């Protein structure tokens, strides 16, 4: 198992290097630069700024400088935000993004698995119909709409919860943003769980178990749950990555200090340092999550280990 994990880690390194390199050069191909704002800068000022950020050097040496810094764990300066380095901004924002993503992941996964299993066991009965309807709502309504509606209902009309912000760092501020993130994740998990559970419940070994006279509960616990989980687990990896990296809209609507919004705003501002920093961080999150899922999969399914 350890060897399997190690091989996975080692194979991730060249992937990371290729991604960083591609990202660096693609970004420079885009027209416009970090100092192209609404107002023209005097040429001398522009030259000074470009020199300050090494932008006056050939692209290849800029790339080497960047990689050199990166190897020392330094993401370099932001070209728009002067008072913080990219590393500082990411370290301040990352805990919020991780907390938001993980909380939504845990709640969404539990809710999704339960809903899927209940649906499957009660296939084509009333609880199934109700749950499927709820799941569909979570899946098809875009999160900016759900976010705004929740904000209006619970923040403005009912006044039960804060409509946004992070001022007090309290649990109450977490409820609405997490709810928005939970819905689609729980929906997808539930759909997968329901489908694979129905399939497992129809297999020969479950029928055999039933014919031996085992109770439903025992069949579910002993024979059905583990194999039914397999497709769900393979989704959980991308699902978690999506929650951790896709909180952009939620962070914007609820004005949360996570790193999701830098992903877009930095790209629009051509803040090269911040774009690369955010991308690399996201890349590591995704690689790490995939690694965990692979290991988990190997544990659940011995066939994977042998390959």
């Amino acid at each position, binding site marked *: 198992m350890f060897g399997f994990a190690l091989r996975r880690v080692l194979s991730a390194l060249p992937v990371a290097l290729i991604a960083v390199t591609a990202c660096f050069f693609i970004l420079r191909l885009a027209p416009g630069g970090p100092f*192209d704002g609404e107002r023209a800068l005097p040429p001398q*000022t522009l030259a000074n700024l470009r020199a300050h950020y090494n932008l006056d050097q050939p692209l290849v040496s800029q790339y080497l400088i960047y990689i050199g810094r990166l190897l020392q764990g330094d993401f370099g300066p932001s070209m728009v935000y002067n*008072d913080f380095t990219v590393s500082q901004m990411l370290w301040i*924002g990352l805990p919020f993004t991780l907390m938001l993503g993980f909380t939504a992941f845990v709640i969404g996964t539990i809710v999704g698995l339960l809903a899927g299993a209940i649906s499957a066991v009660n296939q084509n009965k009333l609880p199934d119909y109700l749950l499927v309807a709820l799941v569909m709502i979570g899946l098809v309504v875009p999160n900016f709409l759900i976010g705004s509606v929740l904000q209006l209902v619970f923040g403005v009309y009912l006044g039960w919860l804060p*409509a946004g912000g992070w001022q*007090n760092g309290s649990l109450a501020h977490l409820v609405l943003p997490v709810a928005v993130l939970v819905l689609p994740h729980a929906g997808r998990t539930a759909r997968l769980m329901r489908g694979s559970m129905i399939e497992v419940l129809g297999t020969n070994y479950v029928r055999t178990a039933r014919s031996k006279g085992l109770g439903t509960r025992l069949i579910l616990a002993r024979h059905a749950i583990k194999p039914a989980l397999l497709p769900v687990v393979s989704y959980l990896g991308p699902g978690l990555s999506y929650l951790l990296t896709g909180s952009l809209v939620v962070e914007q609507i609820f*004005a949360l200090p996570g790193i999701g919004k830098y992903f877009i705003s930095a790209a629009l501002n051509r803040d090269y340092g911040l774009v690369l920093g955010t991308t690399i961080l996201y890349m590591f999150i995704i690689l790490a999550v995939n690694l965990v899922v692979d290991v988990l999969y190997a544990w659940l399914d011995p066939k994977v280990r042998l390959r």
Partner: protein
Amino acid sequence: MSFTQTLKAVSVAGAMALLMSSAASAVTLNMMNGSEPGSLDPHKASGDWENRIIGDYIEGLMAEDANADAIPGQAESYTVSEDGLVYTFKLREGIQWSDGEPVTAEDFVFAFQRLFNPATASEYAYLQFPIKNGSELAEGSITDFNELGVKAIDDKTLEITLEGPTPYFLQALTHYTAYPVPKHLVDKVGDSWTAPENIVGNGPYKITEWVPGSYVKAVKSETYYDAANVQIDEVNYFVQDDLAAALARYRAGEYDILTDIPSDQAEWIKTNLEGQDYFAPFLGVYYYVINQEKAPFDNVEVRKALSMAINRDVIGPDVLGTGELPAYGWVPEGTANYEGVAPYQPEWIGLSYEERVAQAKAIMEGLGYTASTPLAVQLKYNTNDNHQRVAVAISSMWEQIGVKTELFNSETAVHYDALRAGDFQVGRAGWLLDYSDPSNTLELLTTGIMQEGQMNWGNNYGRYSNPEFDALIKSAAAEADLTARAKMLGDAEKIAMDEVGAIPIYWYIAQNVVAPSITGFVNNAKDIHRTRWLTKAE
């Protein structure tokens, strides 16, 4: 940081915040401040969202009153020499930085030298170019900072020498580029003096916390000379880019002031939040630039026809819904130092819209452009709902006169890169005045300068050029008599607008929403509202 650590950190922070909030009932102003501040260093800032914070924690020689007019700030009094070239400021007694160090004339000298130092690369340094040798130092043609026209006579006396008489100079001093910086601190920590752990100021508030992406917090500074008259104890400047969400949070009572609104909600706000809408014109013009190096836009008649065919009366009230006033001239009404000059009106102002279209159509037909053989125009704008609405409306207005418009939008950096490179036919632009003086907009239309074998057109994207106009702007800069100066600038405006050097469309309006518990918020032409003038009823 692991998940459990994060959870612990957050719950501890939450508990602390709860304790702190119950400990004292401070008067707190919660302001929706827009974007994340790029910097709190007055030499590195560039946006109004930064100005709102910086102007609360640092004060210059001159400050703004509730109407945003210049009043003495750190300077107690000043004298101006006969020729209007030398200003002598006397600093107040006992003024201090928030760490207890005294504010001295040397801090100002140091700040101006830093502002003009090419190494600082300050974007807005040019606002202080009226100061003697300022531009030369910034461009690097002079390198000895002792030649700068800012001198400390003693600890309390500062002397500033100008290049020419500058009637708006006291106003320019209210701009953050003229603020002092704490020399003792910058000497010690350099550019990181504005980092949250270092920052000090000399204004009514001091910065105590900055969570990037969330908020900046400031509390009342007890060392400020006028602290006795400052009512609000704490200010939170919230980062909030999503305007619809901002309005929801305002309605939920989480914000006391909104500094911007979603345009499509303007009507709703006027009806449902009566008395809380502070929508008022302020000094800024929304305009289209026409590339005058490209045919047929080098033809005045074509530019005139394009301008005439725009029905400006419907854009503010109907297309945008916020009630922007139509703009025909280049200098916003209410701009200071422009007394005696009537607002510019084109000769066709008296015609009805139908008559204007008919005339514009005739012009275009004379040049061979009709509905069947239209002039193809590409209109570029930076991606934004409002810019798009205006562009769509104007392209349909132009269709009537034989112009077929292709709309092209791109993100801000790409858009302005194209404008500067001259890679456009018609493009959107806007200008908010840095200080209330006609020269601030008129200089946008001066001919570029040859620098190192290249024409630098600055902000004159359309590359309008008229020697007579340039000469008037130049002689106005040296004119000490305000009436004569205003006349020269007025003549210049007429020349540029008669030739349609650019197409003004509307005057910007400020869109603030202010809760009934706040008093002292006054609509003004600069849309500057310092917290020290506000009070909040609990």
